[in-house]
């Protein structure tokens, strides 16, 4: 089969590889009908996630048709249409039972690696380094889906792929970020990053009762989408002197009640701290560039919440922890517990409350993947979201 494989920094190729096989009793094999490049795939593309090896198959946003099931899978049969959440979860451990799916105990064969880095390890992810389990990803014609009895969600034929594909990651991730803000009536929610997760976080903030949503970015077409599709007030951080002053002014001097960092480890900025991060990251002294996170911590109102769906991998410097402490902030973060939200969000799509396909800008073939990784990374061609049909 054809698959998008990682070969090194900014080197992804479409290769011919053997078809996946059932390896465990709860596995299924899915024939992929639509897959996407996620913003977090760009961290792999740029070489910032350790433990990738040559030939690893990428992709954690995919859906398709079940073609084979393992002996212990009774709820699915060949022919079923499914979306597959990006965290691989067992559904039986303490964390899964407590709706903290992305912290699953039982799916990462390389958990010891994560334990060495983080103390404890969570769920494995598709196509996201050996640290996260080393599972082959879904930017391929076929993919092996472990614990197919608990993870995939069946989709009825009436819904087109493009409307439901983002239930695998970015829609629940955005919703999780907004849910973590514990939104109360009257709340102003500020979102750093108008990429797909940021846009879904804005949509979700409205769903959860926000009074106002403010979006911060610098890419014109993304700010436009935030305004037009997500009803957000927008701040172009390259056009203003100080984001803090602007947000303070917009909120009557209080600051936003909740701040969402939907940017993560590769933030762009032009303040001294952003430059400092850039230099250290290039020199491999620091993994992550945390400009957006610092700003969110600084801008958030007293007693507010900073929610972090943006991905961080290692150590970050100059975090204004004094500000977080002094203002009594609540910090919430992590990989989204997709399985906790996915069915409720599917219902919203079925009821036509939201059509997640609004942010797709590029509809391509799997063969176009190498070019599209570059286009998406460089935000060329007004690229916001790429979907690919194998």
């Amino acid at each position, binding site marked *: 089969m054809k698959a998008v494989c990682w070969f090194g920094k900014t080197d992804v190729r479409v290769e011919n590889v053997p078809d996946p096989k059932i390896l465990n009793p*709860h596995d299924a094999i899915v024939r992929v009908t639509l897959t996407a490049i996620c913003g977090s795939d760009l961290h792999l593309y740029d070489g910032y996630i350790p433990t990738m*090896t040559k030939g690893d198959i990428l992709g954690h946003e995919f859906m398709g048709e079940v073609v084979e099931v393992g002996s212990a899978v009774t709820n699915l049969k060949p022919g079923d249409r499914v979306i597959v959440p990006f965290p691989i979860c*067992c559904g039986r*451990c*303490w964390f899964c039972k407590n709706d903290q799916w992305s912290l699953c105990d*039982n799916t990462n064969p390389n958990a*010891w690696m994560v334990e060495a880095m983080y103390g404890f390890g969570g769920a494995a992810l598709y196509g996201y380094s050996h640290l996260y389990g080393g599972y082959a990803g879904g930017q391929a014609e076929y993919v092996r889906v472990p614990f197919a009895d608990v993870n995939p969600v069946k989709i009825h034929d009436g819904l087109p792929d493009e409307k439901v594909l983002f239930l695998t990651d970015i829609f629940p991730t955005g919703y999780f970020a907004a849910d973590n803000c514990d939104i109360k009536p009257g709340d102003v929610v500020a979102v750093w990053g108008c990429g797909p997760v940021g846009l879904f976080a804005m949509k979700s903030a409205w769903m959860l009762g926000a009074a106002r949503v403010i979006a911060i970015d610098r890419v014109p077409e993304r700010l436009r989408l935030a305004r037009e599709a997500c009803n957000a007030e927008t701040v172009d951080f390259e056009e203003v002197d100080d984001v803090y002053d602007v947000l303070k002014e917009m909120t009557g001097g209080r600051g936003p009640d909740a701040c969402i960092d939907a940017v993560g480890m590769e933030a762009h900025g032009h303040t001294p701290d952003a430059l400092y991060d850039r230099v250290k990251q290039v020199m491999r002294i620091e993994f992550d560039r945390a400009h957006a996170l610092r700003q969110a911590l600084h801008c958030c109102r007293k007693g507010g919440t900073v929610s972090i769906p943006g991905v961080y991998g290692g150590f970050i410097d100059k975090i204004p922890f004094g500000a977080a402490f002094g203002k009594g902030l609540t910090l919430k973060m992590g990989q989204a517990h997709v399985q906790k939200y996915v069915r409720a969000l599917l219902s919203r799509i079925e009821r036509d409350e939201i059509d997640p396909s609004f942010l797709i800008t590029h509809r391509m073939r799997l063969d176009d993947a190498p070019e599209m990784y570059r286009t998406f990374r460089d935000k060329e061609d007004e690229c916001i979201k790429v979907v690919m049909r194998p």
Partner: protein
Amino acid sequence: MQPAEILSPSSSQNVNDRERWLSVVIGSAVAVYGLTRRSIAGITLAGLGGALVWRGASGRCPVYDSLGITSVAESDGERPNVSIPYGRGVRVEQTVTIGLPPEQIYAFFRNFENLPRFMSHLQSVTVLDDKRSHWVTKGPAGSDAEWDAEIINEIPNELIGWRSVDGSQVDNAGSVHFKANPGDRGTDVKVILRYDPPGGLLGAVTAKIFGEDPAHQVKEDLRALKMLLETGEIASTTGQPNGVPHRARLRERLAEFAR
């Protein structure tokens, strides 16, 4: 050189006499070979050989020291009913939480024939009778070993203790403890293992260097036990597709190792 002088006992000694002799002989050979090479690698080898000779002569091993182990027996007289005298061999202790009641985990563990399902270095265990069983391992670098074990202590749903019987290839003793946690936090399963590795402790250190660290091994085995009991399978990616053929990947790993 009088061996008796070299091998005079000392309180800080942590290498036994047989191993000390081996160290001196192998160390000398390595040093001589290294010196004849007349290269950087040769000098390194000679240094290593010298260190081994020193280890044999002094009876002190800094590697054992850092690992907290010793191959010197407490006393010369072996006590009956003890597979590994106190202070000898390698001791490993690891714990995992499993989301099942102790009874279920105990029942699974008590049937020793289940052990190879999650212990990657065990090839098979055959239950001989209520107390005795025959164990066969896949040792490091293909060094298989087998022995008979007997249960010496047992409290149903709480603990099982076993030891290898006299004349085993690998003297070992172990126990597993089951303790229910309050609330819905399952059962703490603790394994304590002591063993005298084949090839002496030198063998154990070699195994550690080449990635067969027994503590890591037991930890991973317990993780596999948790996966197996909680989900019915052990997470794995072995056999999945990859963009680089297996053989090419192996070559690359070897090349990396050589660098």
